[in-house]
């Protein structure tokens, strides 16, 4: 692992190390928690043939939507594309391979990798299309589907605050998949609006302990709030 004392990077250096064809977890549920600045830097950096793992596809023109539109994404593992018609079009046109998981199973497959397990046993989706082809096992007289852990080379996560050791604090519903992904990938690159010295984050408030985080990048709120769009209620 990266030494605690060597985690702070500038954003170009952080994303430049991501290899072509990498499998990348991306935090966020819709816009909140999406590491927009890291994604824009990744687009700039040029890697293609990527497999992305994200709850959704953001919206057209922002976040992973931009990477999909630029043809950089080979495969997307997700739960829902509802807000991104260009991603749906890319899928329907065969330009984007999409693998869907029920949202909670997607979360748990990621969490499972983060916990160092090989998989878990679930009863979700039994008798539906989701369970077709899923391996089953009987335990305590009941059938269970085996969901393998979902691994990634890199996770890109968004935090409200970080310290230079890589401790992270998320805010409100910008948490979502971020803490799970921050434990699950081989390399974890975190962007944060505020980067403090160790000891400045209240210890009971830290959501992701620094041990899981490889690199920390400070980003401006302005560069990472482009994703904010009005949605009615």
């Amino acid at each position, binding site marked *: 692992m990266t030494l605690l004392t060597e985690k702070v990077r500038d954003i170009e250096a952080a994303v430049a190390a991501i290899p072509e064809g990498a499998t990348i977890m991306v935090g966020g549920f819709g816009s909140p928690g999406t590491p927009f600045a890291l994604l824009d830097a990744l687009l700039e950096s040029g890697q293609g043939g990527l497999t992305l793992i994200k709850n959704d596809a953001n919206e057209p023109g922002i976040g992973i939507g931009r990477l999909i539109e630029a043809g950089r994404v080979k495969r997307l593992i997700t739960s829902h594309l509802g807000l991104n018609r260009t991603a749906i079009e890319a899928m329907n046109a065969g330009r984007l391979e999409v693998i869907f998981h029920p949202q909670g199973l997607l979360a748990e497959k990621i969490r499972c990798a983060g916990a160092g397990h090989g998989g878990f046993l679930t009863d*979700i989706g039994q008798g539906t299309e989701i369970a077709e082809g899923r391996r089953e096992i009987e335990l305590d007289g009941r059938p269970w589907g085996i969901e393998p852990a979902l691994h990634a080379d890199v996770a890109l996560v968004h935090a409200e605050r970080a310290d230079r050791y890589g401790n992270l604090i998320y805010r409100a519903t910008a948490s979502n998949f971020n803490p799970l992904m921050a434990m699950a990938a081989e390399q974890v690159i975190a962007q944060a609006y505020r980067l403090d010295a160790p000891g400045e984050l209240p210890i009971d408030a830290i959501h992701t302990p620094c041990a899981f985080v490889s690199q920390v990048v400070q980003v401006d709120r302005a560069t990472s709030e482009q994703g904010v769009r009005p949605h009615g209620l």
Partner: protein
Amino acid sequence: MASDTQRILARAAREVIPGQIVNLGIGLPTRLFHYLPDEMEVLVHSENGVLGCRPRRDGEAPDHDMIDSGGAYITTRPGASVFDSATSFAMIRRSRVDLTFMGAFEVDADGNLANWKIPGKFSPGIGGAMELAQKVRRLVVLCSHNDKHGNPKILARCRLPLTASGCVSRIITDKAVMDVTPAGLAVVDIAEGLDPADLRAATEAPLLIDESRMGRF
């Protein structure tokens, strides 16, 4: 006069018991939000990771980190908490959500629900619907009784891929409130001005109707 959706929502609001934890599905059910009075001690769960959602008040600035699962900016009420997606779905899978309202493409006499996919036409993914449908303690479907072409949505047997089987407790449409029972769909309430024959004609599933016990809404 109340529109069809207003009538559905007003009737649906009567399903909620103070002290419950309630999830509102995307679309029509989300609008139930506005039918739950502020002083009612109910926590609305949204699967992106918040318990205790409240609609934003007029003029309240949006908090860009605070949305519901439909993407709308929300605020929270006293007793609210936020958490990650794993915790949110643990809550669902462990049946710690008391009640959920969901839309439907089709729902049938056995309480089967199809609301996520129309093969060849609509398949944006399942989101959190499957786990909610399968595990929340009580699922109430809110939908129009017939689709825009007038075809029944309350079927003898769903034809679309299922979200979950046998998961629906009650169905509230613009025409009726129906309970899923072992004997079939039992009509609880019928819309004002509608007679049972008209209701049967608009419904593919056989209906159990006891006019002496049936209410109006």
